[in-house]
């Protein structure tokens, strides 16, 4: 059991963080509002969780302006994709193990 849990990543141990990664691994990028709508999260909630993922280097953030409106784009990094894959595989093994 201990072995199996090794690959369960603490960084993904929250619904919103797991959701952000799920969206970013299958899309080239997603902007703030898209993520918000898909996850049903509040601004502050999404901002803090994305910051946590950015800190560990799993996602990359690009800020720019479209006209006068700020637009934030989120990308999954190669490291983030790799870690997410391991996490999902670990989850699947845990389910099958039972």
């Amino acid at each position, binding site marked *: 059991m201990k072995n199996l849990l090794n690959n369960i990543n603490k960084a993904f141990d929250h*619904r919103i963080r*797991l*959701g952000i990664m*799920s*969206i970013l*691994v*299958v*899309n080239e990028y*997603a902007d703030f509002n*898209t993520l918000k709508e*898909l*996850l049903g999260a509040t601004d502050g909630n999404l901002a803090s969780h994305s910051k946590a993922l950015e800190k560990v280097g799993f996602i990359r953030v690009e800020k720019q302006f479209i006209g006068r409106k700020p637009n934030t784009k989120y990308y999954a990094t190669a490291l983030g994709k790799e870690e997410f894959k391991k996490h*999902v595989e670990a*989850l*699947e093994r*845990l*389910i099958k193990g*039972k």
Partner: protein
Amino acid sequence: MSSEDYLKDISEIKNLMSKSSRFISLSGLSGVLAGTYAILGAVYAYWLVNKSERGYLILDGQIFRLVLLDMLIVLVLSISTAVYLTTLKAKKNGEKIWDATTKRLLTSFLIPLVAGGIYTLIILKQQRYGQTGALMLLFYGLALVNASKYTLGYVKYLGITEIILGLLCAVYPGYGFWFWVIGFGVMHIVYGILMYFKYEKQ
């Protein structure tokens, strides 16, 4: 966390992946209707050509213009039906009709289709009529396969079917009309029904 929580995580991951990257509100019913229009249009064209004195189609006659108009009407009707029914379904699913997913879906569909359409016109202009049916089927199939990664899985199989029909049609250009009827009529109805039963009827 218990096993149930893990299971919930996995299903949420899968759900978000597909919701964020695929447009799922494509209406199967609109496929059935498009196929029906195509068959009706083809029947009319067939009747037009056969009642004429010549009994076959030449390019600058009155009948050719009528056939062209006939095809145009089929095209416009099919597109408007698809847009209308798909919008309805998207509203029902709470899915946006104009977002990143639909934009990607449309661009990946239109690029091969428009390129193929222009190429078909060029071929027509050079009076190589025999291959037009094959080219239309082939490029339509390629456009479908290309767009299928952003929508329901059946679109890919419809695309592959159209490609095969297009290639067969190129080998037997004399039966172009029939391949066209099968590709744009029968196949739309068949796949429309399959999609309707798989995704819409609950």
